[in-house]
């Protein structure tokens, strides 16, 4: 066991020592998590609105109502707002001119100029603005009505608050009825990107590491190790554990960093780690197999990246599995990524427990065992070629 751990330790050390890995291991995965989160996560939950015009009760009220709904509001001049809109930095721009402000104060009809951007969620944000204005108009109408019945102005607020407390407000519960919306219910802004990138990069890190196995064989290091008191089984175990450790390290780093930097929720930590551990074993077995079947480091690196990307794309790491057509979804099940993706989806989105992800873990474990056995067998055979 000591010999296997010694060999595994060298593999991990060589992986971390390779400077070209620093960017791809530590920076690139987080960049992708960030990009995917910004593209698919943020717009769906918040919006960016500019409210232009001088200070007025109407403008202040709109800003207040929008901010209550977590919309980001800025107060640029109208021309600046239009430019920001054109550059895609705003979803909606609203101009509250003096006439509108006065009409609002007088309780008359208010005309506001509103321009919507081209972002996918701009329509939703426009509706947010309309709702905010409707709330303000209703409030102003109530105030005017009370004043018309002789309520003095400084008691209007109390009267409305009292009326609100006495009224049973209808509760509006929104339920997602389509399956797709249900799938992503409760998902944080960066959660989806983080789990997908974790699976992609764990596999890539292991597969590109297969080049070191080829290098060791080519340099005669494998032969030298076996000329010492080290059995072939210990060497195979060491190579396997080394690649597995690389996968767990890469995945653990993404989990930790995405959690700290982007607040990604990984659900049950021990269960997520279990998925990572078993998925890394699948990746390690594949890496050993690749490292024994190919003859040069260049071929292994190229094939590793290619295979890693194709499996990740098929397995839902680039485009969510939930929006795959049925046929592609069925095909995706040949990849370990799809099973691990589903396991993470259960853990992250639906608070899945061990029994919920047991089927996925079972399939991944079977894949890991099969690939580890196949990789080990192929490595033993390739050792003869190395002599």
């Amino acid at each position, binding site marked *: 066991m*000591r*010999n296997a751990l*010694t*060999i595994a330790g*060298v593999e991990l*050390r*060589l992986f971390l*020592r*390779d400077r070209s890995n620093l960017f791809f291991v530590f920076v690139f995965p987080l960049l992708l998590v960030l990009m995917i989160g910004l593209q698919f996560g943020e717009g769906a939950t918040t919006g960016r609105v500019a409210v232009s015009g001088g200070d007025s009760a109407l403008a202040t009220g709109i800003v207040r109502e929008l901010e209550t709904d977590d919309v980001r509001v800025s107060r640029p001049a109208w021309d600046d707002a239009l430019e920001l809109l054109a550059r895609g930095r705003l979803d909606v721009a609203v101009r509250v001119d003096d006439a509108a402000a006065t009409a609002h104060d007088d309780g008359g009809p208010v005309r506001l100029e509103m321009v919507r951007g081209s972002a996918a969620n701009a329509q939703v944000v426009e509706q947010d603005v309309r709702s905010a204005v409707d709330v303000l108009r209703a409030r102003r109408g109530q105030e005017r009505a009370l004043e018309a019945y002789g309520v003095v102005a400084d008691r209007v607020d109390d009267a409305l608050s009292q009326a609100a407390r006495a009224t049973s407000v209808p509760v509006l519960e929104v339920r997602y009825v389509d399956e797709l919306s249900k799938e992503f219910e409760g998902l944080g802004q960066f959660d989806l990107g983080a789990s997908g990138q974790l699976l992609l990069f764990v596999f890539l890190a292991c597969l590109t590491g297969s080049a070191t196995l080829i290098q*060791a064989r080519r*340099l*005669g*290091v494998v*032969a*030298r*190790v*076996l*000329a*010492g*008191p*080290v*059995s*072939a089984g210990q060497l195979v175990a060491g190579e396997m554990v080394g690649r597995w450790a690389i996968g767990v390290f890469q995945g653990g780093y993404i989990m930790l960093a995405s959690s700290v930097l982007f607040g990604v929720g990984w659900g049950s930590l021990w269960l997520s780690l279990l998925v990572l551990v078993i998925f890394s074993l699948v990746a390690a077995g594949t890496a050993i197999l690749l490292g024994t079947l190919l003859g040069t480091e260049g071929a292994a690196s190229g094939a590793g990246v290619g295979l890693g990307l194709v499996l990740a794309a098929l397995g839902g790491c680039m485009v969510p599995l939930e929006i795959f057509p049925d046929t592609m979804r069925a095909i995706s099940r040949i990849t370990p990524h799809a099973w691990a993706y589903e396991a993470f989806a259960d853990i992250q989105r639906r608070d899945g427990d061990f029994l919920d992800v047991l089927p996925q873990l079972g399939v991944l474990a079977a894949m890991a065992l099969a690939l580890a056995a196949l990789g080990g067998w192929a490595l033993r055979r390739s050792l*003869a070629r190395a*002599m």
Partner: protein
Amino acid sequence: MTDDVLVVDSLVRRFGDLTAVDGVSFRIAPGETYGLLGPNGAGKTTTISMVAGLIAADEGTVTVAGQPMTPRTTGPKRHLGLVPQELAIYPDLTGRENLALFGRLQGLRGAALRGRVEEVLSLIGLADRAKDRSKEYSGGMKRRLNIGIGLLNRPTLLILDEPTVGVDPQSRHAILESVEALSGEGMAVLYTTHYMEEAERLCDRIGIIDSGRLQAEGTRDELVRLIGGVDTIRLGGTGDLAGAADELRRIPGVERVETERRSAVLTVKDAPALVAQVVGTAAAHGVTLADVEISRPDLESVFLHLTGKGLRD
């Protein structure tokens, strides 16, 4: 039971239709340096791979320090130090890390490991470059590190597979000196090479291998005698060479004299011992010598005689 460190008995190894090693047998005693001399593709490395337990023999046995060696046994490998022909080191590890890694795999731990690593670093002259990655070393330094790894476990049997291939003359000299020193300390050495000079300088006994078969074995002199090797003295000059030939034939030890117009070639048993008498006799017959050339049969001649081809073919 034998005191020999290595006993190789009737080894056979086939790769498909090719028989790479065909009935090779030899023994190495403690402190003895045994050379396997043969051209590329002769079966040296395959033999070594079986001796080191890297590949299994189809037939025959290998015994190291009294224990049978196979790919599945690890016990006898503790007595073995292998220096492969390739630079079997991790280029991205430092010299010290490379030594520590292989030392750990040899079972060394803690203070014993650290101490031995430092000893070997000094021995191979890399103590001041121990912290540098081995890919930054010169070719000769890498070779020294390659050899140093083979010495970590203080092996009873050190196997050196063409350790001087591609090495500059200065590093080659250092390597040969190291091998001589190790042998002097009692280590048995199995040394493969296709450089005749190295085999002549280092090896107590030499096995000549070609086409997978051990063609002959013995000390240098035994091998030369085996082919009936004789020395020649070639005299070049002017005068009555033909007349001197009769007198030259009468010198004890001279077996044959062939003359041409300006030269005579004498076949003799021991050229260095007879050359003075030969020159004197020729001069006494009025021969003015322009040059005298002595040729002694070497391993190249032996190899040529045994295999019909040169060592570097």
